[in-house]
């Protein structure tokens, strides 16, 4: 039997959130946290969480698992349960809609703010735009982001200034386009980032790197952006 404590909040019924305790029979198996949530939902169908692909590529089920942000579907119990107890809370820093479901609007707005699309001022050729394998390799570790928000919601700078600091996820994507040899809007992109908040609120504490379920390194990407700003400004 596994003891699971889950954050519950229903905006139409609850004055304030509370923790609800469940007992789950895992059958001795090393289930993923998402499987445990399905078992809980069988006990109480009102329990609410997002899920889709169940294999760590869609980014729906980011949550705080025993205090650490991660994806429920690829976090096995053996990796997170301590003293037979599992505590599940919504990702921090963003408003809770219900139970484990958060309102991600701010997170998405920050993503949109960095203009996350390829910009090229030359007319498109009849075939693809050529790119050498070396140029393409620069996008590895950047394009794989699944927008799960585990990183940004683990970042104190994002907690304090979610509307001003782009956050690790958005900045990773900003660099994904800065690093793309097919993108020609480098100057405009950098100009948009050169203020005291957007990039420079990153103090390099690397919480983002610690929690990224895809093993990406936003801190490093932010460093690259800073270097680009530096060589542009000096």
């Amino acid at each position, binding site marked *: 039997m596994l003891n699971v404590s889950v954050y519950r909040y229903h905006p139409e019924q609850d004055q304030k959130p509370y923790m609800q305790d469940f007992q789950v029979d895992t059958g001795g198996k090393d289930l993923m946290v998402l499987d445990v949530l399905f078992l809980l939902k069988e006990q109480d169908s009102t329990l609410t969480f*997002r899920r889709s692909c169940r294999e760590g590529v869609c980014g729906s089920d980011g949550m705080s698992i025993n205090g650490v942000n991660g994806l429920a579907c690829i976090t096995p119990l053996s990796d997170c349960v301590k003293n037979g107890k599992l505590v599940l809370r919504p990702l921090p820093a963003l408003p809770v*809609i219900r139970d484990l479901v958060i309102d991600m609007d701010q997170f998405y707005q920050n993503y949109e703010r960095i203009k996350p699309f390829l910009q090229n001022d030359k007319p498109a050729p009849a075939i693809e735009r050529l790119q050498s394998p070396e140029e393409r390799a620069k996008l590895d570790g950047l394009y794989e982001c699944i927008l799960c928000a585990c990183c940004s919601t683990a970042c104190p700078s994002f907690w304090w200034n979610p509307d001003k600091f782009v956050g690790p996820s958005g900045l990773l994507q900003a660099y994904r386009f800065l690093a793309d040899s097919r993108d020609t809007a480098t100057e405009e992109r950098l100009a948009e980032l050169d203020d005291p908040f957007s990039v420079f609120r990153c103090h390099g504490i690397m919480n983002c790197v610690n929690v990224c379920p895809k093993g990406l390194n936003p801190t490093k990407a932010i460093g690259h952006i800073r270097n680009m700003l530096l060589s542009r400004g000096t």
Partner: protein
Amino acid sequence: MSETLRKMSFEAIVIGGGGAGMRAALQLTESGLKTACITKVFPTRSHTVSAQGGITCAIASHDPNDDWRWHMYDTVKGSDYIGDQDAIEYMCSVGPQAVFELDHMGLPFSRFENGRIYQRPFGGQSKEFGEGGQAARTCAAADRTGHALLHALYQGNLKGGTTFLNEWYAVDLVENDDGDVVGVVAICIETGETVYIEAKATVLATGGAGRIYQSTTNAHINTGDGIGMALRMGLPAQDMEMWQFHPTGIAGAGTLVTEGCRGEGGYLINKDGERFMERYAPNAKDLAGRDVVARSMVMEILEGRGCGEKGDHVFLKLDHLGEEVLESRLPGICELSRTFAHADPVVEPIPVVPTCHYMMGGLPTNIGGQVLYPESESESRVVEGLYACGEVACVSVHGANRLGGNSLLDLVVFGRACGLQIEKSMSEGFESKAATQANLDKAMARLHKLNSSEGGESISAVREELQKIMQLYFGVFREGESMQKGLQLLRDLKSKIDNLHLRDKSGAFNTDRIEALELQNLFEVAFATAVAAEERKESRGAHARNDFTERDDENWLKHSIYYPQDERVGKRDVNFKPATLDAFPPKVRTY
């Protein structure tokens, strides 16, 4: 019961924010039509994100002499000759343009030394109409092509300024007095508000329904919502018996392992370490059509040569490719295998088993995505105002068996085509009658019934029962008697489906309600599958029967059409009239 719903109006709406839906939405937005994309999950959480290996298309990068006609030949052969050749011709010839557009949108394709898009070999690919050996035609972004494609399309839509209604769930289509579709009743999941979203053109891009099976590579959201809505409206569905079982789902977990693994040189072995595909497909071996490989695997398991304690799976061997190739070409697979199979492909094989993957069937459409109502074997009429593209549609380019890499191409080519067709219709001044209150009440009926349920069946229990029935009686191998038994069990289950108990009646983010509505759609799909499967008395493509082991071109070189009103299966002619070349006549299909 009658109530006034809030109304939102658009010229065109797209239901579904996956690859097909977002490609259609992009086309519509760029054409200047007032468009909304309605999606039950944030767009980048759609199932397209899970596609791995690539998008097959003759862009002549790996082989400068590659020809879309060869791709067309492969696709026709792969479909076991019930793919419509005009549609396949369109897809293969327009494909390169659609793929280049993706590159211009920013999709980070892997590259060859000369800077062109990387292409890898996939199953069922050939040169020179099957005479020139294995081709490498699948354009890839490592093994995350679907992810890269979906994000690129979302980014393209952000750039274009598409309106998204994220986390809105489409309940049922609204049909006016003329039988035209004039929008949809949808729930804003966050608040629970029900709204009538009015549109002159409604595009279904709701994807597949792999969740009718217990073991599937499909996401939890793949519940056949589009098919369910159409069937409830009385529209027929085509080739619903054709379900692809992907040879390599991770045993136990069901997560997909791309065919690209075998394209890069991996192969399947049985418990004796034998590369058994050499026996079943001497030429193409592990890169035979998916139906052929899946059946061969099941044969090995049934004949006692399966691996593991229970002998219930086989192994996919990759370690001989070396760590460098695996980490650069198949990094996502290494990650998935370590997580879900506890096997590191660099040093040990991955346990795999055929797993439900793709619905070849769907709503019959023409090349412009207009949904058709087949009235006889040779005649169909257009259902005005309703379009479909992607997995929910059956154009049909996949026939009885889809080739790997063709689904992503299907999405972008026909998503785009749908947009173009709507643009054309609208410029010709298409108008439809406004919905009456009675029309809206009809579309609200199912939701009302569920919302007023006082007791009844548990949603998760009924879903599990449905999935078990489908897994047991409508799997890789099928047989008349057992299918009839399965069909009877489904008929018995119908009363439970109609009597689901919605415990949670609240508004905000009520997933209980959404799951109940989804379950009803799953049932519609499952039932259509079962009826059509029992009816098609032959073996073709993915539909393999132990009691009718041969392909029967005399009687069944046809699409099956499931008519929901009388639960009857009719037939429809396959198109053998491509516009620019002679049709490929049916041949014995060997690899």
